[in-house]
């Protein structure tokens, strides 16, 4: 089965005042229909840039897709015309952003905003589009949707706004839905509601979901497969069970170990020391070496490649040579 969304060796660079930096370094990912791929890592790891590349929303300049390919249903998106990308965006690929308040237009009612998305991609009248918008609001669990459709974003709670974003994103039944930290700004109870809603919508529409998050707990509940990113590279990729139960890369282990668990009482959390290095200071070798407890001389000189060493693909010399 060929993947619905296939990213291969994607290379994205940005011109900054520190010179040219590589934001994505040969990133390869794929998502099948009806599947959820979790992309996990700290801020600055390239998760959002990956999503924006798929949407054709990388600001150029300063950004540039320097190489690689993004195929949606077999169609190449890298180098596609702006008009073609506009046609695909919203209808074939849609995105749910992190902050629903800044992603919605404050001066239009939410029904109007959803109707606008529908009218852009389908040849329907405003009245019909508005009716569809009300039906979508009902579908995403907004009470009294016909009245709520006339409300403005500021009249809704954070959870309601994110539901509106989801309604808008699924209004044209996209094949691929990208959710970039969709619940970061929300309370846990609302987060649980949004996760359940995304899962329901996936069952209904068969959409492929790419869920971007830094929370391994969210990965556990939502993802079928996981890609762990660090400093612009995919450093581990496998099924959610494999990554959560037998993480290979020290960074993936760190992300799992540093979550304070609900069910147990530990005295000290295992922390990952330091921070993600700025992209212009990566230097040679493995980008994680400075934070890694297992680093050896080889890590300082040679960049590890994503390869399977027995288990699942991982980019780590230690996993390859078995010294972890």
């Amino acid at each position: 089965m060929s993947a619905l969304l296939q990213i291969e060796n994607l290379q994205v660079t940005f011109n900054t005042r520190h010179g040219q930096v590589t934001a994505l370094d040969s990133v390869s990912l794929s998502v099948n229909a009806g599947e959820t791929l979790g992309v996990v890592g700290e801020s600055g790891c390239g998760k959002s840039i990956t999503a924006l590349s798929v949407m054709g929303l990388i600001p150029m300049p300063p950004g540039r897709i320097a190489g690689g390919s993004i195929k949606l249903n077999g169609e190449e998106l890298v180098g596609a015309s702006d008009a073609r990308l506009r046609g695909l965006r919203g209808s074939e690929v849609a995105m749910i952003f992190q902050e629903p308040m800044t992603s919605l237009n404050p001066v239009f009612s939410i029904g109007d905003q959803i109707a606008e998305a529908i009218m852009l991609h389908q040849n329907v009248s405003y009245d019909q589009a508005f009716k569809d918008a009300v039906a979508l609001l009902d579908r995403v669990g907004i009470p009294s949707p016909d009245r709520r459709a006339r409300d403005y974003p500021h009249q809704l709670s954070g959870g309601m706004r994110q539901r509106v974003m989801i309604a808008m994103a699924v209004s044209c039944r996209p094949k691929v839905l990208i959710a970039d930290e969709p619940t970061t700004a929300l309370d846990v109870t609302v987060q649980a509601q949004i996760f359940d809603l995304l899962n329901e919508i996936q069952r209904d529409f068969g959409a492929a979901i790419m869920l971007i998050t830094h929370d391994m707990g969210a990965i556990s509940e939502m993802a079928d497969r996981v890609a762990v990113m660090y400093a612009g590279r995919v450093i581990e990729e496998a099924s959610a069970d494999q990554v959560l139960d037998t993480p290979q890369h020290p960074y993936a282990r760190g992300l799992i170990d540093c979550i304070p668990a609900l069910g147990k009482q530990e005295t000290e959390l295992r922390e990952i020391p330091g921070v993600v290095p700025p992209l212009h200071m990566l230097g040679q070798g493995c980008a994680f070496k400075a934070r890694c407890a297992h680093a050896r001389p080889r890590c300082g000189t040679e960049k590890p490649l994503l390869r399977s060493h027995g288990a699942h693909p991982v980019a780590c010399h230690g996993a390859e040579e078995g010294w972890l």
Partner: protein
Amino acid sequence: MSVLLDVRDLTVRFGLPKPSIFAPRPYLEAVRQVSFTLHAGRALGIVGESGSGKTTAAMAAIRLVAASSGQVLFQGEDLLGLSETEMRARRRDVQLIFQDPYSSLNPRARVADIVREPMDLMGIGTPDERHARVEELFKLVGLRPDQLNLFPHQFSGGQRQRISIARALTTNPRLLVCDEPVSALDVAIQAQILNLLAKLKTELGLSYLFISHDLGVVRHVCDDVAVMYLGKIVEIGDRTQLFDAPQHPYTQALLAAAPSLARRKSRGYVRPLKISGDPPSPINPPKGCAFADRCPKAQQICRSTQPSLAGGAGHQVACHFPGPATEGTAAQI
């Protein structure tokens, strides 16, 4: 074990705009008769959704928000009865750490000055002593003395939160109020800050009033936990009892909603206890239990009579039908 902070029936009311000039002013009760006790050297966590009044309750307890009624006994003295000048002197003992390490540090000041400022304002020590103290605190929170003359933008989020912590410690406080101190940080950095807070609590004998919506974080840091809903404490108790045997349906729902590594999509988990909707408006709170509309156990009495906190000293719950979750919620977490 001595009592550091004893809050009794604390109520905070905010005035709303009058509907017409002759109408009486309507009020919003953000915090309704909240009582809790914090012992020296312990940490009390306050959890709840946004709008539940957890921050307002903590701010009213240290007089950063005016309380409408109630008592706040800090080391036996009622803070609400003090004059502004008297209160200012007590502020040495109570310091704060805020949620957003980006907006809580002055972008134009060098971090050494930021950390030293509380001592300047309170006239603590000579200039040399203050400088030495800043250096000592920098090392204590895990920063390097050669970073003293940098500006806040030259630090990462986690480092900025360390600076906030150093600033809070300059006056040797007894109590630290931490308002969502790690929710703006990446998970890997969260662990660093939580470990630092745990270390400081043991080494300096600090007490924390710890506000958070993340139950995992609260379980890790706090000895006791209070769960708030629409301005009231609905369950309060020792962390082990509260997390392992929650009695209030809202606490159970919060625990069920928190993402957990134990729940896997591949194993076809079903969230054991779901709550839908949003909390009711605090402007016109329901007559009975505030949680009744979202509660799976709600009966007639829940809509007519407000339950009050009841139970033993270690664990109290405000619910007409307390008890373990019906579908084994606690067992699955």
